[in-house]
């Protein structure tokens, strides 16, 4: 069963969550993600599913913690300042090993920042975001279709690894209206949620379930070291198995752009323009912002490719590219200072990227 629709990326997230079997959504108003919260407020009660407008993003993330603890698929969404507020509980959920999905539709910062597009939460999303040692898989949609499909993937990966999954979107991808096909994707079976807190009467063994994020209170692990070891192994498993990226004209590329989200779409256009000028450019578009394709970039660097990070921030993603090339290749940067206008409405456009490509060729 599938259905074609002409909708925004933000709304596509709602449809993706629906076909993935998400049962509860918690949200607080913040621009530019309001269409997500409003979509769930409108559609979820009709389906008999849970929607709660929370009193703050702290409320959203902790309600998500509660809902996820019952074993259902649940999610919340926010934008940069609200995403910051959520970090204590993100860390707690990583410790408690709770599957859940959180959307960050990025806006400008630091601080309150402009309410329009930006890509400045890359570090915060890919490094965990909160205190302590943990990582979350971070999916980066670049179209309305991907907003729908990666939301489904997010729920699957969350269940597969018993770990929160983050979707890093931005105001442009969120508000972009495109034709999409809403189709349920079958990713295969996920582990049983025997740990879920549902009331003792619902457990076959009649024994109580406890969900906590201290790790050593109730002997979930024999020691703190054992808990950390488990996290470490899980992080390595995710790194090994869940890397996703789109390689665009990279086979013969002498200069490879690296980008995600809206700037990846712009970068693709710039690659096409460069190719018509005979410049061998290509693009690595991140589909997972974490895990990051270090190995792929390192290999290309040792084969002689140079790199150009394109991101709507002062420079965060570029650090990962530098780590990947290990000084083997030149790494350039097109950043937020290269927007076509100095106002918050300014965007990184293909001609600016092309100009940079030309200086690096």
């Amino acid at each position, binding site marked *: 069963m599938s259905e074609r629709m002409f909708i925004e990326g933000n709304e596509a997230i709602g449809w993706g969550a629906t076909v993935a079997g998400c*049962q509860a959504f918690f949200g607080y108003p913040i621009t530019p993600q309001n269409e997500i919260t409003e979509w769930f407020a409108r559609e979820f009660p009709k389906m008999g599913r849970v929607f709660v407008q929370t009193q703050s993003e702290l409320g959203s993330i902790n309600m998500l913690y509660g*809902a996820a603890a019952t074993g259902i698929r649940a999610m919340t969404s926010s934008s940069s300042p609200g995403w910051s507020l959520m970090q204590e509980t993100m860390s707690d959920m990583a410790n408690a090993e709770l599957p859940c999905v959180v959307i960050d539709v990025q806006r400008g910062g630091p601080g309150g920042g402009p309410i329009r597009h930006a890509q400045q939460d890359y570090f915060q999303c890919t490094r965990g975001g909160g205190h302590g040692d943990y990582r979350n898989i971070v999916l980066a949609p670049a179209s309305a279709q991907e907003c729908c499909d990666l939301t489904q993937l997010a729920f699957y990966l969350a269940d597969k690894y018993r770990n929160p999954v983050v979707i890093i979107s931005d105001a442009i991808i969120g508000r972009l209206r495109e034709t999409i096909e809403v189709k349920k994707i079958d990713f295969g079976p996920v582990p049983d949620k025997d740990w879920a*807190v549902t009331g003792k009467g619902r457990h076959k063994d009649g024994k109580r379930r406890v969900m906590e994020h201290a790790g050593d209170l109730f002997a979930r692990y024999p020691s703190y070291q054992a808990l950390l070891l488990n996290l470490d192994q899980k992080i390595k498993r995710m790194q090994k198995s869940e890397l996703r990226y789109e390689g665009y004209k990279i086979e013969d590329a002498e200069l490879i752009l690296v980008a995600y989200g809206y700037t990846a779409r712009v970068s693709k256009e710039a690659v096409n323009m460069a190719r018509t000028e005979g410049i061998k450019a290509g693009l690595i578009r991140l589909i997972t912002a974490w895990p990051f394709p270090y190995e792929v970039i390192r290999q290309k660097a040792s084969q002689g490719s140079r790199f150009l990070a394109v991101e709507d921030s002062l420079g965060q993603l570029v650090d990962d590219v530098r780590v990947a090339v290990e000084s083997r290749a030149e790494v350039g940067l097109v950043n937020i200072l290269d927007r076509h206008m100095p106002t918050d409405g300014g965007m990184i456009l293909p001609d600016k990227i092309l100009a940079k490509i030309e200086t690096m060729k």
Partner: protein
Amino acid sequence: MTRERVAGRPRLLIPQTAGFVYCSGCHEPLVARAIAEALEELGMGDKTIGVFDIGCNSFLLGMLDIDSVLTPHGRPPDMATAIKHVYPDNIVFTVQGDGGLLAIGADPLLGVLTRAEKITIMMLNNAVYGTTGGQMAPTSLVGQKTTTTPEGRDVIKSGFPIHAAEMIATFKGTAYSARGAVNNPYNYERTRKYIKVAFDKQINKAGFSFVEILVACPANWRLSPIDSLKWMEERMIPEFPLGEFKNVDKIE
């Protein structure tokens, strides 16, 4: 003639075989017992989820044989809200300290009161932050010496104690609000009944229910367990009067 069980350990109370974590003279284990008894009387142990906060109250999580979750500090009302929406026929309650509910947790408390969530919050009021060593709490008495008010709580500098049960009773979404204590058998019995009524409001989907429970903290009051009982009678109860402040079958 049916035989009534009048004594013995409630089945929902887990024997503390690995050692008892509470300080001598602490009243919190009595609250665990009162909750266990109330749930047993209602026959709801299998359909109840307890939500516990960071603080000494989290040890209750190890005492009650029910499905339970531990939350980040101050957030039990949020988690309880979500769990109640997912399982509306379960009893979902929180246990929190005065700081956990009225200071760091004031945001989720107000959210729950605004939305009239059909959950029960139990607040343990000992007039200090217990786990962290006896700092001033929102409920510390005027003049009370704590580690952060070494000269005593000064109303000009740090205001007045909050009266949670009275305040919560003023909200339209509240079906039940009461304050009890467990300092003697009479007050214990009354408190157990308050808890049972509060759970009953959930079963009948009446509205939000709240029970504040005064508990002694001899370690941080710097008093012996016996002197703590005296301080409870002479200082705490006059400031925080016991009784029911709201009890309705339907919110409107």
